[in-house]
């Protein structure tokens, strides 16, 4: 399919920085007339739909060194922002250690898109499907800020990411997934509950309506030791449901608690609706899939 001809103005200039600092300098220089581009898969759909105008300058990140690898750090796995979704999907350690991230990436778009699109781009879009899974792993983001690197909790960044005046000239270098605590790994009687769900309007190659992730541990008696719940989907900015998490922690995961969690998700999750699915459907779906995973875990742990 060709470009939507009506949306093409003049062709943008494409710049090819070799370092993060150089990329940042371009962005600083161009301001709103320059846009970072990684795989370009999302930008392209936005230009074609006329949602955003093609900028005068594209700052191509594919040549920036060192951003396309998945590295094992001291306390976490570092996903270089230019790592393609396909490379994330095929990475054995990521799959073994953070399977929800692999699940999330697997269900984004279609193979042709996943070979171009990057994990950094998915995060930078704010509403990417991977974000929900990354939240459940308590991920943080490492930015190039012009005068060095800065680490920021993903949850914190999401709170301000869509606000006007947010620091959008920073360059995302990597996504850090912290390795599980020693304690979690040592306690072999703890039962892990970990699942990611994407619900869309069809089975594949579909925007999400709802994304939901649940990650935590139950002890041998079925008490919730730790839990993270994350929800997103569509144009909804993903978020943790920290109130519900706190209310669950230390409680026995029984029918009463499940019912409570279901009700709390319905309250706390505030999805954006569109002509295809209303808020009520999205709330019920998120609550249902999360509680079903908890129920499943509660049954096998006792």
């Amino acid at each position, binding site marked *: 399919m060709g470009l939507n001809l009506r949306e093409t103005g003049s062709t943008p200039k494409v710049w090819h920085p070799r370092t993060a600092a150089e990329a940042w300098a371009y962005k600083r220089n161009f301001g709103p007339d320059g846009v970072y581009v990684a795989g370009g898969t999302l930008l392209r759909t936005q230009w074609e739909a006329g949602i955003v105008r093609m900028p005068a300058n594209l700052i191509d990140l594919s040549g920036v060194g060192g951003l396309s690898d998945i590295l094992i750090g001291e306390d976490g796995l570092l996903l270089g922002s230019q790592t393609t979704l396909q490379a994330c999907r095929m990475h054995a350690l990521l799959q073994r250690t953070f399977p929800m991230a692999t699940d999330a990436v697997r269900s984004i778009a279609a193979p042709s898109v996943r070979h171009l699109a990057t994990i950094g781009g998915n995060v930078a879009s704010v509403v990417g499907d991977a974000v929900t899974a990354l939240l459940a792993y308590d991920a943080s983001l490492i930015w190039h800020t012009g005068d060095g690197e800065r680490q920021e909790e993903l949850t914190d960044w999401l709170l301000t990411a869509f606000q006007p005046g947010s620091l959008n000239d920073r360059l995302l270098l990597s996504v850090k997934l912290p390795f599980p605590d020693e304690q979690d790994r040592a306690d072999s009687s703890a039962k892990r509950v970990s699942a990611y769900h994407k619900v869309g309007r069809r*089975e594949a190659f579909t925007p999400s309506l709802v994304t939901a992730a649940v990650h935590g541990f139950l002890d041998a008696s079925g008490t919730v030791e730790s839990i993270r719940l994350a929800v997103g989907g569509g144009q909804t900015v993903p978020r943790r449901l920290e109130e519900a998490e706190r209310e669950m922690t230390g409680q026995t995961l029984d029918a009463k608690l499940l019912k409570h969690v279901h009700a709390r998700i319905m309250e706390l999750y505030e999805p954006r609706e569109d002509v295809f699915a209303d808020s009520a459907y999205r709330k019920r779906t998120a609550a*249902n899939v999360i509680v079903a995973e908890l129920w499943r875990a509660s049954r096998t742990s006792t």
Partner: protein
Amino acid sequence: MLLNRASVGERWRIRPDGPAKVTGSLEYLTDMAREGMLHGLVLRSEYPHARIRSIRTDQAKRLEGVHGVLTYLDVPGLNAFGIARPDQPVLCEDRVRYVGDAVACVAAETPELAARALALIEVDYELLPVVAGPIEALRGDAPQLHPQGNALHRTSFRRGDVEEGFKQCAHIVEETYETPRQMHTYMETEGGLFVPEADGRLTVYSPTQHGFMDRMQLSRILAVPQQSIRVVSSPIGGSFGGKDELNVQPYGALLAMHTGRPVKIHQTRWESVRAGLKRHPMRIAMKTGTDAAGRLIAHRASIVADTGPYSTLGAEVLNFATEHVIGPYRYDHVDVEGVSAFTNNGMSGEFRGFGGNQAIFALEGQMDRLAERLGMDPWAFRKLNLRRPEDPGPFDQPIAATEGAVKVWEAIAECSLWLERGAPAESGQAMLEPWIKTGIGAAFTMHGAGLGVGIPDPAGGRLTLAPDGKIEAAFGYEEFGQGLIATLELMLIEQFGFAADDIRIIIGDTDAVPDSGSTTASRATSMMWKSLRRLKEPFASRLLERAASVLDAETGELRLGEGGIRERAGEALLLTYRELADAEQSPIRCETSFSFPTSPTDRVGAHFMYTYSAVAAKVELNVLTGRVKVLRQFHAVAAGPVMNPQGYLGQIEGGSSMALGFALLEDAVMEEGRYMTRNLDTYLVPTIADQRGAVDVLPIEHLPEGDEHGPRGIGEVGSVTLGPAIAAAIRQASGKWVTRLPVDPASLQETPVFLSEAVNGG
């Protein structure tokens, strides 16, 4: 025997157009280019309904590199098109009635320049109130979209006295069904190359399902004789009814004639969605009653269709729906009324199934509800009320009798999927994932083929021994992916004994083929078969007579074979077709023309030949999300002999894929006359992941002794029955009735059962 690659053996062939399509090397008409060609674009209306105060094109015309900017003032002939009734403006003069209406068109040296020129055209609109739906359109105070009012067409059919009938009923079911605005979603969007020739003629390379109809319509618009236009129309990257009507051809033709240069137009998907046809959304209210024993007594149906702004084949689609809401059942009293209303929504028109899909969803929904009301097995209920072979058609018209209905019924009754319905296997999964529910349902149809009574429906073809020794088969049919070329080749091999190498197939070129009618309405295979049957004796005997004289032999000693004329008793090749052609002064040629058989009735649109089909489907419902997956399908299709196994299977599988989309996914959502689904990222068709379940197809080839009509159509029927079968399966899985397609997952969601237990136990 199930139809598949293993069961058909050598008849499973590599289709002639297969390798080029699979490798991507095939050049479609929209891939064509000419040196020095211009690029055309069409300016579509900004509003669903508005008066045009003025159109100013001066700025656009002044742009360097722009060679033509045309408005209604530049249409030399009839400024309108429409297969049945030409009321759609080529270029709007004073009013626009939908967002796809064309106001101007431009040709420029590059696509970018054309886009810039388009942006420079100034149209001054005065907004008019939007007629956003058919029911609204038919109200007395609605803005009138056409001089004859907002009702494009009304239908009615009555038998007996339905009110009296309902009085006798022990059980009555009343329900209203709604179906979506489905898009054809062919891979190749509309377009073509338009070339003014040195001799003053115009060649149109642009996909259509009926080249001669396009030629006639274009000649009317251009005010030139039909013979001065050549339409080349195949190969086509999918059509499904959506390219039968003119789309961009008028603009390409006008721009090419105006500029004297070749013009290429190829719509983006956005333009295709905006301007193109869709399936008619219908609202069908039904009231159906039986006696205490379950015999149908009275059936009333009321159809309201949204036909959009212009006629195209809206009236014909409504006629078809009116016939098919009666269906393959016996009732004493019937009362059907239909209306197709003009609106400011998108254009509705011809689409595979042609109104049958909507009708059968409603009708089969009634059958399932009545069976349940009676406590009967739904399939036994259908048997009780099923038509007999000698019964007249739905409109009480004489039809070609077959035993298709009962044979299809039996095939479903005996299939493993239907047997499983009665005895669902307990699975361990129900304990582990109690939110997963399964169900099995089935649905039935009799689907008419051909255009029906009252509409010219020509057919025919031509066979020639060409000077180079090839056997040329020329038909006015189109290859849009259905496998027409492969089917024709296999018929020629099997009926005449030719080898594939002996044959040259010529289609899709008005300069080279006879008018065989349209490639629509499940008719092409039937008509090719009939043509070859009529041509066989004259063509074969002329070849043999000529060969006999060349060989100085008796015709009785000869036969047609692979590569040439062979001895009747043996294999010996006596004379190649090339040698025979060389010995002749002029090509040996036979041609036939006839009409698609019709019923002897005055009822416009009534059919004579029917395909009977039913499908059983198993679905899985996840009540957490309300999402439905189709796990398995079994199709039984009674359509006479299978001409091309691969094509037959492809038609049923492909049709069922469209039906799956119709039932579960697809709807071109409109609000106030504007599409909310403007591209394929929001208008979702099934992917392979949505249709992983097996599809079994059982062809029932039996025809009565002496049947003269041969293979029945299978092009549409696969797309008809799966929707209601899925709805029935959902009923078994969830206890909920579906009345609206596509199924809304929210309506099937449930709070997980373990939470209800918590309440009960709590």
